[in-house]
């Protein structure tokens, strides 16, 4: 069991309070996932800049060192903001690959969780209420965001086993369910030069989608091929630069509820996740159909 939430703002009143809404939604899904929690927040894009979220187990030491290291590189202009165990580095879009390889080569304890113009990923072990407090999610604004509360079944409770998983620039995935062919699929993807951080089944799903997109498929096509090649139970919510998508497996055991008003589209594993949203009692509420790809975008 896991919990998923998602909120897509159609109006300013929602995007200005996106973090507040998502925090409440995530906390309401604590019963479904008390092990760890995470969110992807899509904030304002910065002109010709990109954001890189990095995570460390010893943030004080590592982020100071990283700051010093990057400052010494005269050709790199950046800013770094620390959020507990995570730091968001803003840098020139042209320098992102250079900085990513510098980090990977020089800082083995740092993990790059996400890269994108808008997306920042925050995830950590602990109860959802502790996680949203740690990262001060309630202060965050944005056009949309997705979150996940995890009850681990397939692999250990670790920060990197928490969701969301990045599937590419400004793209991420959260998963409720369990995949039964993730080991064989992981081996196949490794042969295709994809790399993995964990033994987690959801990371395989994320990697599968990344691989499909890298080989020229659209996100919709990638999700449709997931229907063919992934065996197991899943409700996926994928975050993209412009919105979010939902896909349930054909058996659709894993719950999903959608709600739409003139102000927002919201996703919850249960209706409970949506009850804190404004005017929810007037919203159109329905269950997404199995094996059907849904998308909302700006």
């Amino acid at each position, binding site marked *: 069991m896991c919990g998923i939430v998602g909120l897509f703002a159609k109006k300013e009143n929602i995007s200005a309070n996106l973090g507040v809404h998502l925090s409440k939604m995530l906390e309401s899904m604590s019963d479904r996932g008390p092990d760890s929690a995470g969110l992807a927040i899509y904030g304002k894009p910065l002109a010709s800049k990109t954001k890189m979220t990095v995570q460390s187990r010893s943030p004080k030491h590592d982020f100071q060192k990283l700051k010093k290291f990057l400052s010494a590189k005269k050709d790199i202009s950046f800013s770094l903001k620390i959020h507990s165990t995570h730091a968001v580095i803003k840098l020139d879009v042209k320098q992102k690959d250079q900085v990513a390889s510098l980090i990977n080569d020089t800082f083995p304890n740092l993990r790059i969780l996400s890269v994108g113009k808008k997306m920042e990923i925050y995830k950590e072990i602990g109860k959802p209420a502790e996680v949203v407090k740690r990262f001060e999610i309630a202060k965050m604004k944005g056009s949309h965001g997705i979150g996940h509360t995890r009850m681990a079944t397939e692999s250990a409770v670790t920060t990197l086993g928490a969701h969301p998983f990045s599937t590419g620039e400004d793209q991420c995935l959260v998963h409720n369910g369990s995949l039964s062919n993730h080991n064989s699929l992981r081996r196949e993807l490794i042969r295709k030069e994809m790399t993995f951080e964990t033994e987690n089944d959801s990371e395989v799903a994320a990697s599968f989608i990344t691989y499909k997109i890298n080989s020229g498929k659209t996100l919709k096509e990638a999700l449709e091929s997931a229907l063919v090649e992934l065996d197991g139970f899943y409700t996926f919510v994928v975050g993209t630069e412009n919105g979010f998508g939902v896909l349930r497996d054909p058996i*659709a*055991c894993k*719950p999903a*509820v959608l709600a739409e008003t003139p102000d927002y589209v919201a996703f919850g594993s*249960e*209706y*409970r*996740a*949506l*009850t804190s949203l404004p005017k929810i*009692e007037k919203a159109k*509420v*329905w*269950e997404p159909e*199995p094996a059907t790809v849904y998308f909302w975008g700006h």
Partner: protein
Amino acid sequence: MHILDFNKLSLRDINKTLQGSDKNSSFSIRNPKGSHALAVGINKRITVKVVGSVGYYCAGMNKFSDIKVEGSAGPGLGENMMSGNIHVTGDVSQYAGASGHGGSILVDGNASSRCGISMKGVDIIVKGNVGHMSAFMAQKGNLVIFGDAGHALGDSIYEANIYVAGEVASLGADCIEKRMTKKHLSNLENILSNANVSDYNTDTFRRFGSARSLYNFDVDNAKIY
């Protein structure tokens, strides 16, 4: 009418009050906010109205009582109910009425997948559509669908009746369309009138049930094993 408000009382307090109440009392439950397992295990004739949507397992194991949800219900509505009536004005999620032995469930909206799975005598009326695998392994009772039915309707069905007014995406193993006899027409009318449903035309319904070919082992299949 007693009012029980989730803003003031816990789920456990509300369920204890309902289960311990006097016969023929009536309750209005406010602000359920999608709570799970509300009004479960009631075994006396009381009336419960829930104002708002509920979560998993509402009205499970119901016996005798009348429960109305003015909103939608999550998975497992009225699971294993024995008797009484449940009425949901919105939609219901997966496996509504699963393994229900008796009584009736009326859903004004749509029901999701596996509606009436393993039903054992309950009557389920859905004014909208039902999802895939509805009436899976149904043994007894009636599933009446005003709208469309999803894939694999009545898969591995034993002896329940399924009445559908809309389209059927596909039938499951051993489920076939059957002739609507006078007996079945009057059965359908009875079910609907017992549930106080009046706006219908029985001519639009088709009947589905078991081909009974899975009842006994077919020796011709022995070589498969």
